């Protein structure tokens, strides 16, 4: 498989690989697989709190994957967030993948489109890292860094601290986003894996808007800081 095919996210070329390997003794070492991960699906305990989800899915082979990432939040029809990324993911090191593709912010409106380049992987000490640079139209740039850690209380009771920061290259007044460090969030979720694939959890989520973004929020009369207790579940297949 050559690189040009891959860059084009050619699923046809991906599936061609799988048919060419079937015969030999042990079978195919690298079958076409998909994994769908609903990492978070949760509701705030307070009735005012939004419903929030974050999911990823991949389709592909060991060294070539089409990766989808989506997250969203729904409070009411006026206040919702929804974004989706489609990425091609290619390993560059034993624990690291480089990912590039597109991201579209569907809500809030007006929607924004971005080109994405990022790295995702496992850092020493088992930190799950996802770092991406977004380049939008009209010279917009943004960056998101997130880190997650799994602390096993027991084999099935798992505490997950995570942090995420967002940065923007310039103001986007329509969306209330200011340049610089715009927000930081931290979460702590305690899940119980009934089976590997399904785990209900409870958690707490804290978000702080910063800098110009916080100023926009104050003008709009919104809180710059939110803390909510959440109940949700995590699932994959």
């Amino acid at each position, binding site marked *: 498989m050559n690189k040009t095919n891959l860059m084009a996210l050619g699923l046809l070329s991906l599936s061609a690989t799988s048919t060419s*390997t079937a*015969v*030999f*003794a*042990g*079978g*195919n*070492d*690298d*079958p076409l*697989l998909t*994994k769908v991960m609903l990492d978070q699906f949760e509701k705030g305990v307070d009735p005012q709190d939004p419903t929030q989800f974050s999911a990823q899915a991949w389709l592909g082979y*060991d*060294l070539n994957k089409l990766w989808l990432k989506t997250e969203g939040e729904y409070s009411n029809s006026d206040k919702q967030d929804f974004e989706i990324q489609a990425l091609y993911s290619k*390993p*560059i*090191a*034993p*624990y*690291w993948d480089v990912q590039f593709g597109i991201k579209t912010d569907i809500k809030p409106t007006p929607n924004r489109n971005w080109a994405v380049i990022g790295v995702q992987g*496992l*850092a*020493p*000490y*088992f930190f799950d890292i996802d770092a991406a640079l977004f380049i939008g139209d009209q010279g917009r740039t943004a960056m998101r860094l997130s880190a997650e850690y799994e*602390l*096993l*209380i*027991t*084999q*099935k009771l798992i505490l997950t601290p995570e942090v995420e920061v967002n940065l923007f290259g310039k103001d986007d007044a329509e969306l209330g986003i200011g340049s610089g460090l715009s927000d930081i969030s931290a979460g702590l979720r305690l899940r119980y894996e009934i089976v*590997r694939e399904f785990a209900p959890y409870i958690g707490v989520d804290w978000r702080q808007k910063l800098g110009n973004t916080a100023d926009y929020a104050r003008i709009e009369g919104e809180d710059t800081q939110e803390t909510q207790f959440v109940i949700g579940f995590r699932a*994959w297949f």
Partner: protein
Amino acid sequence: MKSQYMIKPMIQKPNSELNNSRRRFVFGASAMLALMSIPFPKNAFANALSQSLSQLSGKVFDLSIDYKMVNFTGKSARATVVNQLLPAPLLRWKEGETVTLRVKNNLDHDSSIHWHGIILPTEMDGVPGFSFDGIKPGETFEYQFTVQQSGTYWYHSHSGYQEQTGLFGAIVIDPATPDPVIYDRDYVIMLSDWSDEAPENIYAKLKKQADYYNYRERTVMDFFSDVNKNGLANTWNARSMWNNARMSDTDISDVTGSTYTYLMNGNPPQQGWQGLFEQGEKVRLRFINSSAMTIFDVRIPGLKMSVVASDGQNIQPVSVDEFRIGVAETYDVVIEPEVDNAYCIFAQSIDRTGFTVGNLTSDASLHAPIPPMDPRPVLGHSDMGMDMNGMDMNGMDMNGMDMNGMDMNGMDHSKMDMGAGEMSGMDHSKMAMGGSDMSGMDHSKMAMGADDMSGMDHSKMPMGGGDMSGMDHSKMAMGAGDMSGMDHSKMDMGAGDMSGMDHSKMAMDAAKATVSGLGLAGFGSNNEIKHIDTEFGPQVDMRADAPKSGLHDPGIGLRDHQQQFNRKVLTYGDIKGLHPTYDTRQPSREIQLHLTGNMNRYMWSVNGVKFMDAAPLEFEYGERLRITLVNDTMMTHPMHLHGMWSELETGDPDFIPRKHTVLVQPGSKISYLVTADAKGQWAYHCHLLFHMPGMFRKVVVK
């Protein structure tokens, strides 16, 4: 014809000799006591008619492959079986005869049968894509070959994952000449692993989450209990390397007892298998590990086992309490059980997540207690190919687990915990000193400045074939006090070949011993361990830069059994052929192959290249060569070469044992000789079913 497999021997020694040779066991009485004192669930062997293997014998065999619903777990699941049996029928052949095997495939997928360990023409080997096209649904393939060997072997599907779902059976070949092994009764003991999950799903889960089946990860609770025991600094240091490397020291088996039910002759542990013996009988047990993914540790509490054959080939008997049997290996042992007693044949998985049992008794109403499983093993630094017991890890560069360029110079052994002052009883048995990478290793701070060094046991220090080149003991502070009792007598330096390492030089002479060239047949490789370019990339997460010799290593989880339980555990170093070495030529060349993988991505390969992308290995017909396997992973890989023997270099050039499957210990190396006397295309692969698709090579002999 089916019959209970209980065969009287062809050769029998006179009774007097039998009696004289019977051994008395101090364990006998205590086992009886244990039997009375340990409460034992009455229903454990309630199904008295535990399944024994059905046997087919003769020259022509009709085998039909079908699906069948089975129930080992309380749930019904679909198996692939031969003649409606799981395990498939035991085939009894006779050396020298020509056998015909008509195999009908009633599956809706291609199938095949590979005769594991059998020397035969390449087109009869049963590997789809190499030997033939496989057996299509509804078709019958006729295998025919002349049996040129005797002993215990097995057969299994070589298509897809059918082996995991039950398509395996035993082969026993009676020798044409008198059997050197004396026994009155023999049983085949087939060990296997069963899952209700479809194997494709197991494989997919491993690709999606490599630790899916590991429910023994380190927890916060463990951490605190270790801190309590060992202190914060030690616990932190012990964990930090693994955490830094993003690896788990509890990753022993990819697939565990969380999905597997372990079977003995097709019986789950709740049911067990039962075998009977009569007074004064010597019983030959033919162990076959027909698992897909499970390495077993086998023992029979209260009985010594005399290991008489390995992979079907007779060996000089070794008396042991316990042995590890890799996937696809076979071991024959002879035991002398005492009448009116019951013995538990106990096979626990390498990761101690499950076991399977049999009851061996002279009285069907007696049932031996099932022992508890041994402590679960934890991987050590040496399993990553680093020999750094107790060494100071601070400041070591482990970036990406890339140990290339790891600085072994200045390795600080000063913290090696050797007890205060007293060196007696020091055990260097696991001190493996393989490879020239050890040059510059500084033992100068090794705290050996003790008064009393008597009783220091170097007996199992594996130093075969001059592996010590460049190792500098010159500053080893052994100067003080009494060294009189230091026992180097059994130091395994390869039958008097001291060229690699001279005692006189060990006597604190700074001069370095070196050996160049191939190394003599029987002693393994002298060559430098090299990681070639293809080993670098996202598909490989570890490279062992100081792989030790795997020869004398009982293996992960067994290393302390001698000290802890007083059990003698078989190692490859104990194995010598009964028959003198068949081909006494020196090897003319050596192939170094690295077993590689990425645990986290669940990718497996050889030299970093998976089978689909690899060129075949080429052997020249008739040549004698050496293969050195270097395990750059933390898993134990059973490597199986089809068509030709793997003659394991265990240190005695005159009695090199022949094997078909060789366990390569984590972070270790091992060498064997091959005579390329079989033209054709052969498979060469790791016999762990889910490693095999990638960790596989085609071998072409022409």
